[in-house]
């Protein structure tokens, strides 16, 4: 063993993770090499002293905050699938007065329409199924309007609500898709961008979505969003994104973790 090789083993020597054979070789070397013995002993003593630095403890408030958050998260998960019809309908009701008024007029118009066609002695203009379809259409339009409006708001929490409305519109809605892509690329808040990436799952069938997602990776400045975008491409099994992922995996300016994740994604998509 030479000095260079012994330096490679010092980290294992201090951590006591050397195999028996290697330790014997190492001991034999430092018995004859003063320089390496000094390194092993002096730096080893410093390595041992590091464990004497007292560990700082978090305040009790951290535990309280964590359990509060966990309880809220569990509550949210448990409540979601068990929501009653009444709660689901109430959840659709917008909070802002302008939207409330718009929805009220829309519902009034629908009510008048249904009342007119259902009045006695008059043959209905449209079959019942068409009325239900029209009603659904109104609700969908309302969701689209609310989603698009909320995504423009100043407040990040309002924009987050906008994203949650966006996932309720049909996947063929190009206006909402375009707004979501804009949010992913330009929103100042990381949480909103991440939520928008999640929402894009619904629009994954569109080639526009896939291309835009692949191109967005290089534009992002946060590794977390970049990784979420790569995960989305893997979930969508988008093999066409391989050239873009190759570019990301070899771009030295991009975070190492992201580059590694892009390589992993390329393996998955093969």
């Amino acid at each position, binding site marked *: 063993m030479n000095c260079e090789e012994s330096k490679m083993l010092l980290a294992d020597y201090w951590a006591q993770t050397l195999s028996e054979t290697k330790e014997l070789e190492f001991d034999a070397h430092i018995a004859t090499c003063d320089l390496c013995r000094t390194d092993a002993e002096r*730096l080893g003593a410093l390595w041992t002293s590091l*464990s004497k*630095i007292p560990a*700082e403890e978090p305040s009790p408030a951290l535990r309280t905050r964590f359990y509060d958050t966990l309880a809220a998260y569990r509550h949210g998960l448990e409540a979601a699938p068990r929501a009653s019809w009444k709660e689901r309908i109430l959840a659709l009701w917008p909070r802002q007065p302008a939207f409330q008024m718009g929805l009220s007029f829309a519902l009034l118009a629908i009510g008048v329409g249904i009342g007119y066609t259902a009045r006695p002695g008059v043959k209905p203009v449209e079959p019942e199924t068409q009325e239900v379809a029209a009603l659904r259409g109104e609700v969908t339009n309302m969701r689209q309007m609310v989603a698009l409006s909320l995504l423009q708001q100043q407040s990040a929490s309002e924009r987050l609500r906008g994203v949650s409305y966006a996932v309720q519109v049909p996947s063929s809605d190009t206006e909402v898709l375009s707004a979501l892509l804009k949010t992913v690329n330009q929103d100042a808040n990381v949480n909103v961008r991440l939520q928008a990436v999640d929402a894009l799952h619904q629009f994954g069938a569109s080639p526009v979505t896939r291309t835009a997602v692949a191109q967005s990776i290089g534009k992002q400045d946060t590794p977390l969003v970049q990784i979420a975008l790569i995960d989305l491409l893997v979930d969508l099994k988008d093999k066409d994104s391989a050239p873009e992922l190759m570019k990301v995996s070899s771009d030295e300016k991009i975070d190492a973790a992201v580059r590694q994740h892009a390589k992993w994604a390329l393996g998955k998509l093969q």
Partner: protein
Amino acid sequence: MAQVGSGDVAKMAVLFERHNRGLFRYFVSLNRNRELSEDLVQDVFFRMLRYRASYDPNQSFTAWMYQIARNANVDQAQKRRAEVVGIDEFDDRRPEPASDAPGPEETVAKGQDVALLKRALDRLPSDKKELLVLARFQDMKYEEIASLLGCEVGTVKVRVFRAMRALEEIYHTLSKERTA
């Protein structure tokens, strides 16, 4: 974590009890700011809940968790840098260690050498400091650190050696300053 990933989010409490102190120490070592470190620990557990489905049970949980912790720290640093620029351009953008100088109690209880070593560690460049914190305080295996940093195990071991050398130099400089 596999149980959390499959939907049993209550098990996150077990992971919190096991890892919150380690994560806190990791963040405090890097940032020297207790309040910020507590926020970051909270953020890491929230991100683990959010991305629980992406956890692969075949990979090291510790490496996965610290990958999230590193990302959270990078995001936070970028945010803080953006806030600091324009407020004070002469600021060195690093909070001063709260306990840079050894307090009298610490000196008596732990000895001056430990306090000096702590100061030396604080002055290490962040990449070297992070490496020593992971290897020495978090008891991570070199293989796990290599997976976290995306490099070979041999590279990690060489970097540990270099980090120890750098730490020793700073330690000696501080010792001389103290005796001068």
